[in-house]
């Protein structure tokens, strides 16, 4: 129990009333913009839309059953999950050496960390636009490739474009998680292994990789979850040709105005989240 001055004084003037007053605003806001809307959305997935766009009275399972029996949504769910997993893998492969380098850096470490993380604070629209400027036809990368007499593949308005853009968008999250995991890595352990005759590859496989596993798992969870729920980047770089759960939620909610279907898909995304979280919990136990 923390005995602070505030508490001590408060105790004289009648217990937790000050505590409740301090917490009241955030509780009210949290209920208004989080608990109530999310609970309401979950309830809405058990309603159905009439042909007019209005919602039918009463609760039923028709929206869920029509969703589950529709192969279109199953293939979309599958595509969302495997693209998310692929993006996570590529992000990990690119972020790992960079994060390791940053954590070992002796000079300009603070600057390197800021360089790696500050893209997070730049709007996703701006960064995705940057990728449109790089990947678009007649734009930066195709022009550079052509100057080397190479024929550039199509880099935008397809899954490749979405994967490239999402990877870069998610790298700062992965680097942050990896850096927090590298804290446990002690350079003397590696030196000891080297002294005992282990080659660089063995040191990495037997010492560095196992010790950084918690950071890897956390980063993968975060990136997968964000990749599955991202909307802006797939929409802008996919050019409407890459239908994922998140883009479908937007289309159903804003274009088709079928809120019950959008609500069902939202619950579906949350189920994918929960499954990823369970996997993460199990894998963390194994690693420990």
């Amino acid at each position, binding site marked *: 129990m*923390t*005995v*602070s*001055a*505030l*508490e001590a*004084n408060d105790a004289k003037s009648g217990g937790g009333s000050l505590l409740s*007053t*301090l917490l009241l*605003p*955030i509780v009210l*806001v*949290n209920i*208004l*913009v*989080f608990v109530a*809307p*999310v609970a*309401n*959305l979950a309830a809405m997935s058990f309603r159905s839309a009439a042909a007019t766009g209005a919602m039918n009275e009463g609760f039923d399972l028709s929206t869920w059953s029509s969703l589950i029996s529709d192969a279109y949504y199953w293939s979309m769910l599958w595509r969302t999950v495997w693209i998310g997993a692929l993006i996570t893998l590529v992000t990990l492969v690119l*972020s790992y050496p*960079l994060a390791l380098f940053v954590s070992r850096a002796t000079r300009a470490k*603070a600057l390197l*960390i*800021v*360089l*790696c993380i*500050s*893209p*997070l*604070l*730049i709007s*996703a*629209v*701006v*960064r*995705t*636009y*940057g990728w449109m*400027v*790089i990947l*678009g036809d007649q734009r930066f990368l195709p*022009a550079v490739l052509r100057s080397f007499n190479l024929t550039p593949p199509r880099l935008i308005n397809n899954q490749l474009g979405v994967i490239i853009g999402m990877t*870069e968008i998610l*790298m700062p999250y992965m680097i*942050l998680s990896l*850096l927090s995991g590298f804290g446990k890595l002690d350079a003397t352990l590696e030196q000891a292994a080297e002294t005992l005759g282990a080659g660089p590859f063995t040191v990495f496989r037997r010492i560095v990789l196992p010790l950084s596993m918690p950071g890897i798992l956390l980063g993968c969870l*975060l990136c997968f979850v*964000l990749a599955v729920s991202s*909307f*802006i980047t797939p929409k*802008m770089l996919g050019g409407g040709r890459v239908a994922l759960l*998140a883009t479908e*939620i937007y289309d159903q*909610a804003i274009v088709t105005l079928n809120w019950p279907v959008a*609500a069902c898909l*939202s619950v579906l*995304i*949350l189920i994918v*989240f929960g499954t990823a979280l369970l996997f993460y919990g199990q894998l963390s136990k194994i690693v420990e």
Partner: protein
Amino acid sequence: MLPKIARGVHALSIILILMFLLAPVILVFPISFSADAYVAWPPSAWSARWYVALLHNEEMVTAFRNSLLIAACVTVITLVVAMPAAVALTRWSFRGQDALISLFTAPLLLPSIVLGLAILVIFAGYGLVSSWPGVVIAHLVITLPYALRVLMTGLGTMPSFVEDAAGTLGAAPWQVFRQITLPLMTPALVASAALAFIVSFDEVVISLFIAGTQLKLLPVSLYHYVESWTDPLVAAVSALLVLGTLGIVLIVERAIGLGKAVSK
């Protein structure tokens, strides 16, 4: 020790990865000075015409002003709501405290597309869609968790015995807060304000749902502009936003360190 060639390959790959990470942010600068009517590489000539065009683009100017005002309102309300909560959650200990903290930071774990839709459905019933108060309240869902966490970290690393001493010497709780707690937590306050501002200013998904078509906000207007136009105007806006964000990054880094502030 690694042989020389392996080290060279390693250094080169680090540089390439770093370039990949920063490429989209850097390339908008040369494109923003293109004289062409559409984005192409390399630009046929250089000019500042798209910056001039930006000043005369009424929608972008209005959207920029609206976004600034909304972010300012959101920042003030976020601090007013998160401050007392952070004090309560670090200076008291009570049953269910951890559960409450998880509840307050939970919106960060939920996809913003789900939050946006959920808030839209509720707000539509009260005429809050496309309204200033509606957008401000909706933004609180994502700014509050960040601010609360930064403030709690700030208060947590600050020894409470200073406050205890002041209390023992007869200072009233409000006096303790005004004269001891508040000055000591200034860095955390500055950092959480800067974060709340940038998170609100940059938010696009929730704004896309709540701001509708009436209330213009910069990220939403940019998104719609890119959908229908291919000229370098957005590159000019992007370049300015990158420079502005750099300022915020420096403020947060100076105040408490960037890594601490943004980790989920």
